[in-house]
């Protein structure tokens, strides 16, 4: 169904935050007025050249944009198929794409007169980026993180604390990202008059999926210009990992109207197909069970859940993909067939990280390694003149404890 008109693709979300049937705003009443305020302030900021000038300055001087689009000469040779380009979001300040959104929302928080930001984090990359931006903009910062994730991403916990952020461990549920979001929402509903919830993915109630997408679309805009400069044509494929889906949306967005550009989102296949062993929400093939449309943490999208609507636990070796729901725009892109979604196991992600390190001299975050793993699977079968861009959303420093077990 990729015959859908570009004008339709450009129009999501609608005024109620809907991407087709997905999205919306399912929150306790206390949060509706703050979300409406955020929507209003974001619209004002979007139309304000000074806001863009300040954000562009911070992205350039503080975060390090633009990031390179690197021709992966050795990986291309190694796989013997498509020509592979790597979008180097791992080179950004703090080590992942997350800072694009944090700078944007940080400026919105200042514009709203909020003195404090709250965030959740899974892999710790969004937490570190939020802590960094809070320090830069002079905001107080509290980050919620599941204790399971604190164990596996200890380096990032220490980075946040060094930056002056209060990191609060969350012991409820599966002690991962979903539970951290619950606690962040509880903090926000309590301190809503003084604090901004700096949500870290294309998830949550409207307008978050839209705002987070818009602050990340610079990834795809740069990549589009860079590939046209280097190859004088558009890519055939885009590859990106999908937890909530922010780096993938950021890359995909600029190419949605280009019907020849195929898009592939890679989910976490974990260690098995049964509910609880994976974080696969959109991959129709492959026998992963438990995903149905439902409402979690403010938005209507595909959610891993039981028949009674209780949210399932998930597993992934990468904390950033270990989440039971997916951004509503991905749910819609999947339904209309504009993007394809697939899954990669823990083991394949580890092997991909090792391959990329040895062949190309880049240690990827385990999240991004999922996209690389799918690329390793598919590139050899592609023609030599096919062009691929893979989004390397983050670097692997934070994962060294996990990776060192496999060296």
């Amino acid at each position: 169904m990729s015959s859908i008109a570009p004008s339709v693709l450009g129009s999501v979300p609608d005024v109620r935050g809907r991407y087709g049937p997905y999205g919306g705003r399912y929150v306790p009443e206390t949060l509706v007025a703050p979300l409406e305020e955020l929507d209003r302030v974001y619209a004002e900021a979007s139309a304000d050249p000074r806001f863009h000038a300040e954000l562009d300055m911070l992205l350039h001087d503080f975060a390090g944009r633009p990031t390179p689009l690197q021709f992966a000469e050795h990986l291309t040779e190694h796989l013997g198929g498509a020509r592979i380009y790597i979008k180097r979001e791992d080179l950004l300040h703090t080590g992942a794409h997350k800072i694009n959104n944090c700078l944007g929302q940080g400026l919105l928080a200042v514009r709203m007169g909020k003195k404090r930001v709250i965030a959740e984090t899974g892999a710790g990359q969004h937490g570190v980026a939020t802590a960094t931006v809070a320090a830069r903009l002079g905001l107080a910062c509290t980050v919620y993180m599941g204790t399971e994730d604190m164990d596996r991403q200890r380096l990032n916990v220490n980075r946040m604390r060094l930056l002056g952020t209060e990191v609060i461990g969350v012991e409820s549920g599966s002690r991962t990202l979903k539970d951290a979001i619950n606690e962040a929402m509880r903090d926000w509903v309590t301190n809503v008059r003084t604090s901004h919830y700096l949500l870290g993915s294309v998830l949550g109630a409207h307008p978050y999926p839209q705002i987070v997408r818009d602050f990340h679309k610079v990834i795809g805009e740069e990549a589009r210009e860079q590939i046209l400069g280097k190859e004088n044509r558009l890519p055939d494929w885009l590859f990106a990992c999908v937890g909530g889906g922010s780096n993938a949306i950021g890359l995909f967005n600029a190419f949605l109207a280009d019907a020849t550009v195929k898009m592939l989102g890679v989910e976490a296949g974990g260690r098995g197909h049964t509910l609880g062993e994976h974080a696969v929400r959109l991959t129709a093939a492959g026998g992963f069970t438990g995903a149905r449309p439902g409402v979690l943490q403010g938005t209507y999208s595909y959610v891993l859940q039981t028949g009674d609507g209780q949210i399932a636990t998930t597993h992934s070796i990468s904390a950033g993909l270990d989440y039971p729901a997916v951004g509503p725009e991905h749910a819609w892109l999947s339904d209309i067939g504009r993007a394809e979604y697939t899954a990669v196991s823990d083991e394949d992600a580890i092997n991909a990280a090792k391959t990329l390190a040895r062949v190309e001299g880049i240690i990827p975050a385990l999240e991004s390694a999922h996209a690389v793993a799918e690329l390793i699977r598919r590139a050899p079968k592609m023609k030599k003149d096919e062009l691929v861009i893979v989004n390397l959303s983050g670097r692997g420093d934070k994962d060294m404890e996990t990776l060192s077990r496999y060296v």
Partner: protein
Amino acid sequence: MSKTAAPQAQDPIAVGRIARKFRELSARGELGLVAYVTAGDPSLDATEQIVLTAAESGADVIELGVPFSDPVADGPTIQRASDRALRAGTTPASVIDLIRSLRGRTQVPLVLFSYFNPILQMGLQKFADAASASGADGVLATDLTPEEASDYRAAMRARDLDTIFLAAPTSPDERLAKIAGSSSGFLYLISRTGVTGTRDALPEDLPALARRVRRFTKLPVAVGFGISRPEHVSVLGGIADAAVVGSAIVDEIEKSVSAKEAALNVGSLIRSLKDAARSGISRRGL
């Protein structure tokens, strides 16, 4: 938005058990007591005993919480209760079965109190049919606002179930009008920004908030979040039509070693709260 009169006063549903109960309370000039219990905590049998005792002890309306894995609007007390109920195997269908069983033994108004996803997964129509057939009187979904609730409201109203929506201190006037227009039975006013849980004192701005809400509705207004003690209830008579007490009741259940003890302790808490409601500031002056 102007101070529009509340159209729901003429709503045909407004003759259900909930409306009748609030009319009785109003005639007596008495503050109502709405008691919340998480269904299935620690078992559905225990909940049945607790609800019956609560009704006998003076609870005017009972909210039965449908446990959900991710209760973002709730504090630690109700989170733990939800966990216990889920571990005991409680499902939305089994909570509706409990209502059927209760309805054979009490006429106390019963409200299903849930997050939206469990209702959505059962199917709006199926949920409404089953809840109505069991003898439930109303439904409240904590994370559902009027804007996202048109299908839900249509399904519930078609089965004569009251739809109770929440108003918050952060709700501007135009939202209060919308919330009032979407609600039936009563309107649930959140007393403060925050999650559920016991607190020491009522917020200072609560009287002003309640007055603001009343400009938009003729429905009874029940105030909840942080209402836990007789002294809270005794002053609410001048402000609201009912007090909602949840976490304080769930605390008693958590502390008890058996269903029987839980029922006894909840019963004595409800009596002390209801005594405060009867002897506190009267509703007649309002």
